[in-house]
């Protein structure tokens, strides 16, 4: 079984919103579009998006970290939004695990949005149907595109390669390896939805250096218990000469 998903690396996301705009640009004219804006230049502006980037501050100043957090449908393996749909418009594809809305069947009752703990669905206020991330299903299988371009628009747009795309059920895929080796985790695991999308945590590379690693304990010059010359703190040639 295939379960396509995104793996989003919070360690490298810089919060540039390129995935947001690229997603909107591709999908508003794609098969799941349009993603209309109401009063785009008015006072009460609002719009439909599949993908948002949020920003959080972790810790108390001055010991703070800024975490940019891209948020879209997680394509849960046990999606709570699917069984509640009265018409069957909300469905999970067997072949690749993508959760989709059949826009011709949706009655706009909003029950699926109530049933999603992540707030991943947005009602299109103009067409009155539920819209959500499709993992660019109209792009990833498009034979007219170069194989390297058969990826979701957000993945293509990310300038820091924070977004990985692949099959999380294939243990050798890039995304599975990232989840396994980089500590990938799901959101709100407490509800048993088993999100397919995973996030990679912030990671710090720290090297622990001990004092005996800075100064060799087995320095042969110390064998006779005499300190090496010149001693530390004495002027060296570098102090006397300007190169």
């Amino acid at each position, binding site marked *: 079984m295939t379960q396509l998903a995104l793996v989003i690396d919070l360690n490298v996301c810089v919060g540039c919103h390129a995935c947001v705009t690229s997603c909107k640009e591709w999908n508003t004219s794609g098969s799941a579009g349009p993603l209309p804006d109401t009063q785009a230049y008015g006072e009460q*502006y609002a719009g439909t998006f599949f993908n948002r980037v*949020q920003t959080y501050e*972790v810790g108390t100043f001055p010991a703070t970290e800024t975490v940019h957090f891209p948020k879209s449908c997680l394509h849960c393996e046990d999606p709570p939004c699917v069984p*509640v749909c009265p*018409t069957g418009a909300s469905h999970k594809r067997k072949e690749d695990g993508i959760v989709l809305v059949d826009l011709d069947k949706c*009655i706009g009752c909003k029950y699926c949005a109530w049933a999603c703990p*992540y707030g991943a669905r947005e009602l299109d206020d103009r067409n009155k149907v539920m819209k959500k991330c499709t993992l660019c299903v109209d792009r990833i299988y498009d034979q007219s595109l170069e194989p390297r371009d058969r990826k979701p628009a957000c993945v293509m747009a990310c300038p820091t390669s924070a977004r990985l795309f692949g099959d999380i059920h294939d243990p050798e895929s890039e995304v599975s390896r990232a989840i396994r080796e980089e500590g990938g985790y799901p*959101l709100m695991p407490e509800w048993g939805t088993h999100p397919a999308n995973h996030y990679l945590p912030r990671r710090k590379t720290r090297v622990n250096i001990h004092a005996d690693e800075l100064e060799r304990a087995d320095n042969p010059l110390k064998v006779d218990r005499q300190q090496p010359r010149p001693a530390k703190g004495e002027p060296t040639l570098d102090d006397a000469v300007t190169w």
Partner: protein
Amino acid sequence: MRPAFSVILLTTLLGAGQGLFLATFTHQAYALLGVLSQDAKGLYGPAAAVSLALLGAGLVASFFHLGRPERAWRSAAMWRTSWLSREVIVLPAFMGTVFLYAAAHLTGFNPVLLHLAGGASVDASVAIGVAGSLFAFALYVCTAMIYACLKFLREWHSPLTVANYILLGTASGFTLAAALAAALAPAEAGFFAGWALAFTALGAISRGASLVRNARLRPVSTVQTAIGVRHPVIRQITQGFTAGSFNTREFFHGQAMSLVRSVRWIFLLFAFAIPAALVAAHFATGSSAVLSVAVVAQMAGLMAERWFFFAEANHPQNLYYQAVA
């Protein structure tokens, strides 16, 4: 959650319609068994017609909740998994049954099906009434389970939600039946008023229990689990956009907590205390006008109760929308 007036009207009107039908048929069943007088037959037809009107009004209200009402017929498809779909099937079935029940009493076409040993005769309306009663309870369960099945909306995810829908619906239905009986069959008003008092009291206990339960809930999801960062101090700087969105409109009631708290006292007063006092006043004075006032007060109270029911529910998605910029 933002309370939608379509859903508030839908659930309160359906609840009262179901309760009124149950009240009517309860009286007929008691009369059949000889517990109550057989003289109130003139009440059954009009009461069932009023019940049908309430159900119809609720059905109309439900269409205002849909973005695409012209596709509503599709919503019967997923009855295997969706409580909403089940409600969509049970509601017309129940309305059809109530229609037949009202027609049997109003037209007089009510053939006797069998004679009981004691001399009582079971006519077609009794068979229809049994089916209607089953549908009425099925509809209460479907309506309540639409909310109770959402496990992360913890204010709703409780058997008390089902109990509340059944008890509040029957309470308002029996109060309405008492007011109708006061006009059409005054001798029988006491029967309905007694049950109205009992169901109002049981509803107050059950709704009070869910208020106490919900006040003690501790959130399962936190901003820590929402973004998966293990740190006690996390503050959202921006939700990613300055405009509103579906997520900020649909899941926040946008009212001051003082208003929400005052609605709680209003509904406790109007849905339970005032109707109970008025029904008690009916027993003391025999006045039928107080029963009509009780109906109006209780329906208003239950609409406030339903508003509070939605406003009280705290959706975990709100964790992601705490700061605009």
